[in-house]
């Protein structure tokens, strides 16, 4: 990626009389801010960074923001392709003010994530096996089998090394008390890691000095770690194993990421039509003939994976691939059928899973959740809709939900009807005041709400990428960080520990 890079000595200090970047920044009341205390002073662990950033004048900062966006655009780090016939592409809006997490806070997050993913993995293994957790009454049968995520066709299948969740993206939010809470588990095809890596590259180039002085944990090893994790679950010896990334194709909004990961891992990026199954083995069509494939990092949803087993109309998938998977001849990562563990109906039971499988208390908290299928809880939700977030259990991306505090009377009463009609279809949570981070808006730093998606890789053991994707709601007062609805992203800095 080509980018103009100012030499360090060219770093300009704000023009005389021009105010610093973060001067006068005012955090929102009753909301945790990632960089500043309530009284407007910087938090200890970011004091140096805040003063470094403060040296930049607004004009200089604006110049660098433009450089960063130009670099992302030229490099084609884009999403939302083909919203019109001219093939317009947008970059995922990128904000240059980083979100910073201290070493000690990160340690807790890291062990909490590994604990959670381990339990979720055991849950999947159990569900597609003995179903002990149901037999022992820890989770109702109706919750598990009532949702779309459970694939009965796969009962009894065990993926290589017993790993169902090779790549997890666990969404975290931070409440007003500063504690991180799990908002959502993504165990199917979580996306966003390419932005983490590209954002970091751009930050290092645009703010070389600030970056060097801040002792930030590197993220560059992600692709190599992913490659290792995938190789470790190959049915054949590593030396003769072939890994591919399977994409729905260039029209998919995450195609950039699929291509990015294949490039970074040095493996082939394939579409469904590049693969075929012969004698329960998967082959890729190459210019020198068919080559057997051992591990498929697939970014196609379960439903489209195999027209013989699931959606017959799917042209994206590979006929017979599930049979090859069942025969143990190919590893699919993530394993098919994970949707049963990351849907909103199962979410309330995850802390119990952790206790059941690991005999441990959950390290990370999660958002209090009312299960509308339970009449008492449903009544409570109906009585308090204006202060609740109500979500459809099969919805995603911020769609199909009611955000009580922002909804009109009509919207609330309409939603109440839907809820009464189909209580099993919904869960509800009290509104959490998402934490904010200073964000560059119209020429000044303003508080905007953020979340965090860390990525957890699991092969023979688990590894967490330091940081993850920080998404930011760019609209004032908004709680919705999704890229499809006006969200942007930030670089996430996990600091090294205090020892030199």
């Amino acid at each position, binding site marked *: *990626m*080509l980018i103009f890079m100012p030499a360090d000595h060219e770093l300009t200090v704000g023009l005389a009389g021009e105010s610093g970047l973060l001067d006068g920044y005012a955090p929102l009341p009753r909301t945790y801010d990632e960089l500043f205390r309530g009284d407007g002073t910087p938090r200890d662990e970011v004091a140096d960074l805040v003063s470094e950033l403060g040296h930049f004048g607004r004009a200089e900062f604006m110049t660098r923001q433009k450089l960063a966006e130009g670099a992302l*655009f*030229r*490099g*084609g780090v884009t999403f939302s392709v083909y919203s019109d016939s*001219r*093939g317009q592409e947008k970059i995922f809006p990128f904000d240059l003010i980083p979100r910073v997490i201290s070493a000690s806070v990160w340690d807790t997050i890291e062990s909490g994530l590994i604990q959670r993913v381990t339990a979720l993995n055991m849950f999947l293994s159990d569900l597609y096996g003995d179903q002990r957790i149901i037999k022992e009454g820890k989770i109702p049968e109706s919750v598990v089998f009532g949702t779309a995520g459970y694939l009965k066709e796969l009962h009894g299948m065990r993926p290589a090394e017993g790993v169902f969740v090779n790549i997890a993206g666990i969404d975290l939010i931070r409440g007003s008390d500063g504690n991180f809470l799990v908002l959502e588990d993504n165990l199917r095809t979580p996306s966003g890691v390419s932005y983490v890596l590209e954002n970091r590259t751009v930050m290092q180039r645009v703010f070389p000095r600030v970056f060097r002085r801040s002792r930030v944990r590197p993220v560059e090893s992600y692709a190599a770690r992913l490659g290792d994790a995938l190789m470790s679950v190959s049915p054949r010896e590593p030396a003769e194993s072939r890994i591919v990334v399977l994409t729905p*194709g*260039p029209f998919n909004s995450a*195609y*950039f990421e699929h*291509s*990015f990961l*294949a*490039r970074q891992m040095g493996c*082939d*990026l*394939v*579409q469904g*039509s*590049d693969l*075929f199954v*012969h*004698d329960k083995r998967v*082959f*890729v*069509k*190459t*210019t*020198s*003939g*068919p080559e057997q494939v051992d591990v498929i990092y697939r970014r196609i949803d379960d439903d489209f994976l195999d027209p013989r087993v699931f959606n017959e109309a799917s042209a994206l998938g590979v006929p017979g691939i599930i049979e090859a998977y069942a025969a143990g001849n190919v590893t699919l990562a993530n394993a098919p059928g994970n949707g049963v563990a990351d849907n909103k109906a199962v979410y309330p039971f995850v802390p119990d899973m952790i206790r059941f499988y690991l005999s441990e208390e959950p390290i990370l908290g999660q958002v209090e959740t009312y299960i509308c299928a339970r009449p008492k809880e449903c009544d409570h939700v109906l009585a308090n809709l204006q202060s609740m977030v109500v979500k459809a259990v099969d919805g995603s991306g911020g769609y199909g939900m009611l955000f009580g505090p922002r909804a009109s009377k009509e919207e609330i009463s309409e939603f109440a009807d839907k809820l009464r009609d189909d209580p099993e279809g919904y869960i509800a949570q009290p509104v959490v005041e998402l934490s904010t981070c200073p964000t560059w808006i119209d020429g000044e730093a303003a508080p905007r709400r953020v979340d965090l998606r860390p990525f957890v890789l699991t092969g023979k053991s688990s590894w967490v990428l330091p940081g993850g994707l920080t998404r930011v709601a760019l609209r004032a007062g908004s709680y919705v960080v999704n890229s499809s609805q006006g969200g942007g992203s930030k670089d996430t800095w996990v600091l090294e520990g205090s020892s030199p």
Partner: protein
Amino acid sequence: MISRVAGNCFWLNRYMERAAGMARLLRVNRSFIPGVDLPDLHRWHPLVVVAGEEERYKRHFGEDENGETVQEYLTWDRRNSTSIVESVRWARENTRTARETVSSEMWETVNSLWHWLQSGPGRRLYRSDRDHFYQHIRQMGELFHGQADETMLNGEPLAFMRLGRYLERAGQTARLMDVHYHTFPEEGPIDDPIRLAQWSALLRSCSATEPFQKRVFGTPTAREVVSFLLFEQDLPRSVSHCLRAARHSLVQVRGYGSNRIGMVSTALLEALLSHVALREGHAIVGTELHEELTYLVDSVSDLCGSIEQEFFQSTELQTQILAEESSAAAQQ
């Protein structure tokens, strides 16, 4: 390499070559026939023919062979699959699809050319300084091919890129000559000023003016021009050079893999090469030349079709190979 991605590599270079070739042709046609009072019809109609767009053009514009209309059609028209903007679009689409294989440098070049054409600057330059506009596209094409050679591993993807580039180029040179063949006098030097201007435009369209001057002295004859463009080994755009370069790439490609894939294409290319070799030194003009050029254009097109079948759309062949392997294993 993945068959489909090999197809992307082959095509992204063909499209870029096509865009740059069209830009070169349009620029030459605008600027290098000065002082020659040629009616628009004779001046611009041949370009529509070279593009293979006669029929569609007629459907949209009837008998209007106004220079502006033709340039607009060949440069910007989305309905014309060979317009510059469409070629660049497909070059970019193929590159984007194969980004894990194509170097970042090449991607940035085609991506920025596409955005330049899509946004204000390209359009503005088209209106204010069209020579410069076409020159820029041609130069981006040269940059792109240069980057392929300078930034790609010397492996299979690059070999498919070159294969696409040279076959497209061979076809282009033959088509260009075919449009001009009827203006070639059968004997003697070309001294009619209009003819001379057309000829020199033909050479220039193949970036061959200066090379030609270095090899041929005095007033050229038709046979010398024809022979130069068809057979000159050292000329990067001569048909013969392009076919030999294509052979080099095809051999390289086949060196990576099984004997089964590429047999037909190799046979076709070898036949075409011996056909050309037989004619070297016997420059032809008139209808015979037209027949020869038609044969070349058709053969290159058949060859591309066969490459498509054998290397890129090979499902049947691949299954067959597996079936043969397993039956061979069963017999042992």
